[in-house]
């Protein structure tokens, strides 16, 4: 029986990698069974199980809270989301990050232009380098 390479990864770690007979996952448009030589496909996954069926008839289950499944002729990749995602939660996070920036800007009265900052930073870096050099000389 033919097999297909299957890789399951999440942003924090690699979950599974190996040769399998079939992958069953729940895509947003319905259940999918991927056998070897399936046509190239990309789909979003619903929260649910990804079942991996091996040649000897055994199987292994992984839970994903969403993600993306990609099929290439000899490769199935599952990118699992680690976090539960929803548009309104993402939006709330974006707004929070913006507010944080506004709060920071409120207590700065004067703003310098980039040329000034560049000069200041160059000075700071040069100082650090000078100190390092000096220390090396002193050691000798």
């Amino acid at each position: 029986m033919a097999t297909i390479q299957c890789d399951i990864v999440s942003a924090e770690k690699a979950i599974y990698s190996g040769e399998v007979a079939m992958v069953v996952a729940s895509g947003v448009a319905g259940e999918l069974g991927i056998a070897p030589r399936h046509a190239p496909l990309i789909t979003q996954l619903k929260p649910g199980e990804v079942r991996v069926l091996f040649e000897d008839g055994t199987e292994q289950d992984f839970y994903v809270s969403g993600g993306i499944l990609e099929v290439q002729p000899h490769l199935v990749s599952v990118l699992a989301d680690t976090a539960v995602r929803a548009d309104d939660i993402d939006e709330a996070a974006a707004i929070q990050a913006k507010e944080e920036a506004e709060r920071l800007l409120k207590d700065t009265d004067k703003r310098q232009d980039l040329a000034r900052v560049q000069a200041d930073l160059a000075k700071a870096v040069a100082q650090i380098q000078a100190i390092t050099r000096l220390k090396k000389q002193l050691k000798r």
Partner: protein
Amino acid sequence: MAVGSEIVTKIKSVKSTRKVTTALEMVSASKIKKAQDQMNASRPYTHKIKQMIGHLAKARPEYKHPFMMEQEANRVGYIILSTDRGLCGGLNSNLFKNAVIHMREWEQKGSEIDVVTVGNKASSTFKSTNVNLKANISSLGDNPELTKLIGVVKVMLDAFENGELSHLYLVFNDFINTMSQKPTIDQLLPLPATEEEAISDNWDYLYEPDAKDVLDHLLTRYVESLVYQGVLENLASEHAARMVAMKSASDNASDLIKDLQLIYNKARQAAITQEISEIVGGAAAV
């Protein structure tokens, strides 16, 4: 007898400083291992998603996502990653210096600069500049979570999608090894063009539910994963830089103590010699 009592005080204070720097050094040395593990653990995902984007670039999608196209806009976006705490040598200053040089090039071309910052050091540097600070997140801690980054990334992605930004860059310290970290500026959007256009077979994916939704989802995850990987690299760089900086601080403190001790001993000996000669002189006079 109060011979060189101020030297003794000085030695004591340098010794206690050395205690602090040695402790910081050891803390960083133990954290760096974990940071490196985290960095390596997230690499498969980044690798996989890059591979997927590579496949996608070879396909002939019937739908072109805005992230793949250059936008007509005169603003440039930067996501700047930095540390929350200092005492890590020139790590942040070097990074910001590079970023500012890059920004000035765009400024001279007449573009305005939008910035989102991660970490206290970047926000406190860039809030007092004339760049447009759009969002900030700090206190990610030693276990940065992807969820905390979603907000700042979304701010920039939305701006790009609405055609407000022409380019989006990620600025971070690339962890090479414990001794060296490289300030890096990567272009996130538009997706850097693939070198070859002429792929013989004219295929495309099946998209479920449809191309727009899937690509939206995939490209957002792509950018997020790159930023997340950047955060982890930056964290490992921070610990490495701090370890090296604190190591040299401790070494310097030791040198200083040695010198001070020598001065103190000389002063003490001089005092004793003087006292003896005074006694001898006194006895001779009697």
